[in-house]
């Protein structure tokens, strides 16, 4: 029974494909998968915008949206209908294009942003046997399509002919290129251990249990460090607080999409959130066991529930961080990436190699943990060396 519920979407799709002539089957199968991604993830995006506003509201000691429910009824749903008027508003607003703007590039930028982000979902395993395009170089594909986002950010910033847009685009590209390196290097450790770039294979390797506990990579020393590096880098890649310098409302208005309004603005917003979900999904797949359950006793829960549950949990942490941490300064941002995360990611690769070649016993836990802890302390000291952090002096109005 549990197995049937687990595979319900796979069997449903096979059932639907049964009604289609043989020649059209690959096409219809692809269309069905694309439709599913196009309906599920924007739906999650709509809910997350409300949850984010409500969560930030609670963190800042206010209520957040709590009025809009189902239209024409008295049902309020705690304000979870808020995304409907938001969507209608962005669809009906005037599409303002600055007179000096480069019209073609300005028009193309949101499309170039959204298409690669949607492509990235093709390789993520959402559940058991639930990968849209399960091929050999899946991880490489994910990072390759991610690279196209930078081009779109530049297109948006440059074509607007606005100094804030260009500044925001420059900041965004510098940040994305800097944090892409620790992101990829932290993912390399997983590839080294698994010996494959196929994401389904990576999940399958973590789908084993000892003493009822899953073999998730995050439960190893190198995996924990890799996951934390990946997490920080993915925060930066998705331009989330505390790395939201490219958008920095208080400094450069909204960065590269200052000059966008109406539906194009909504597309940028959608692209940013879908990119965030995709990169979280990759982090889950690489380090948190993908669709597998953490305990052997809980394997009866369907695989896709685990995947989306983990996604929701990490999105919650992202919102929590946004409500808690202040924005970094540009030099702090670069120092963190190049002087701390990059060396730590390189050392982590060496540690993963040691882990791979040492015998499966407690000494490898000791050696690997000691190496990582030592590197962490030394690098952290190095990062803090030139920061003259004395006692704070406060000045109060009297």
């Amino acid at each position, binding site marked *: 029974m549990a197995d049937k519920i687990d595979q319900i979407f796979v069997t449903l799709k096979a059932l639907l494909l049964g009604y289609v002539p043989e020649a059209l089957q690959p096409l219809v199968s692809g269309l069905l998968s694309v439709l599913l991604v196009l309906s599920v993830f924007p739906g999650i995006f709509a809910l997350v915008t409300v949850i984010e506003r409500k969560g930030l509201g609670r963190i800042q000691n206010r209520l957040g949206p709590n009025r809009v429910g189902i239209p024409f009824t008295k049902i309020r749903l705690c304000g979870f209908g808020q995304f409907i008027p938001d969507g209608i508003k962005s669809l009906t607003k005037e599409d303002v294009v600055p007179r000096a703007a*480069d019209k073609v*590039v300005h028009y193309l930028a949101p499309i170039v942003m959204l298409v690669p982000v949607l492509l990235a979902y093709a390789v993520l395993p959402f559940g058991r046997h639930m990968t849209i395009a399960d*091929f*050999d*170089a899946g991880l*490489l*594909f994910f*990072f*390759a*399509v*991610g*690279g*196209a986002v*930078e*081009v779109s950010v*530049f*297109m948006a910033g*440059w074509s607007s002919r606005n100094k804030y847009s260009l500044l925001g685009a420059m900041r965004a*590209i510098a940040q994305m*290129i800097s944090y*892409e390196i620790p992101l990829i290097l932290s993912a390399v450790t997983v590839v080294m251990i698994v*010996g*494959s*770039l196929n994401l389904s294979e990576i999940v399958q390797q973590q789908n084993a249990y000892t003493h009822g506990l899953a073999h998730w990579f995050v439960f190893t020393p190198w995996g924990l460090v890799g996951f934390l590096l990946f997490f920080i880098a993915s925060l930066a890649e998705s331009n989330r607080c505390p790395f939201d310098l490219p958008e920095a409302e208080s400094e450069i208005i909204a960065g590269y999409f200052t000059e966008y309004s109406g539906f194009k603005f909504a597309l940028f917003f959608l692209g940013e959130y879908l990119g965030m979900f995709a990169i979280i999904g990759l982090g889950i797949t690489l380090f948190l066991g993908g669709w597998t359950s953490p305990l052997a006793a809980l394997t009866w829960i369907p695989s896709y529930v685990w995947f989306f549950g983990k996604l929701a949990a990490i999105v919650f942490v992202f919102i929590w961080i946004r409500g808690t941490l202040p924005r970094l300064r540009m030099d702090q941002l670069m120092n963190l990436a190049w002087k701390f995360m990059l060396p730590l990611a390189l050392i982590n690769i060496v540690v993963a190699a040691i882990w791979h070649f040492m015998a499966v016993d407690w000494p490898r836990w000791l050696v690997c943990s000691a190496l990582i802890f030592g590197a962490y302390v030394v690098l952290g000291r190095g990062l803090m060396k030139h920061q003259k952090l004395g006692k704070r*002096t406060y*000045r109060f109005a*009297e």
Partner: protein
Amino acid sequence: MSLSLIILAFVTLLAASAAMSLRNLVHCALALAVTFAGLAALYLNLDAQFVGFAQILVYVGAVAILIVFAILLTRSGDTPNEAVLAPGWISGIAISAGVFTVLGWAVLNSKALPSSGTLSLAPAATVKDIGKVLMEQYVLPLEVIGLLLTAAMIGAVVIALKEPSKSSSSRGDEAQIKKTEQVEPSHVGSYVGEKKGAA
């Protein structure tokens, strides 16, 4: 020749000619990015997954951005008034045709290419195979390239460093800044103290 190959070739060639002939340099760079993406799609069309994705990752994600940055940092975004074609365009075409001929001749006569009878069978190379070959058979060229790139990076850092020799005046500035920095805390303290005293 399949339909996908024709479409991809058409898009790639169109983007390449746009990259040569557009007036705005940033437009040229963006057209070049499209050309790179088209080349990657051609590789993927030939079932060369690793090369295709590496092409996108390196060329669209990094090289195109680098070109765009170089354009923005070195000249203003104004559209130039001179003609699109450089004066030496005829000799340019002659040279590129010559290079193409030599390369085509070399590829067609290469011993690595199988004879035309077995050409239809594309060799299936997974990423794993490529990694194995790189790490075993071609490990020395790989290391040499790594060394070369490291040297290039160090060179770039050295060029970007501030020159210490002509900073006699700027050093003075720095000293002054340091002095003011040292002065400031005590000044603040006295300011706070005064306020407190006044209170």
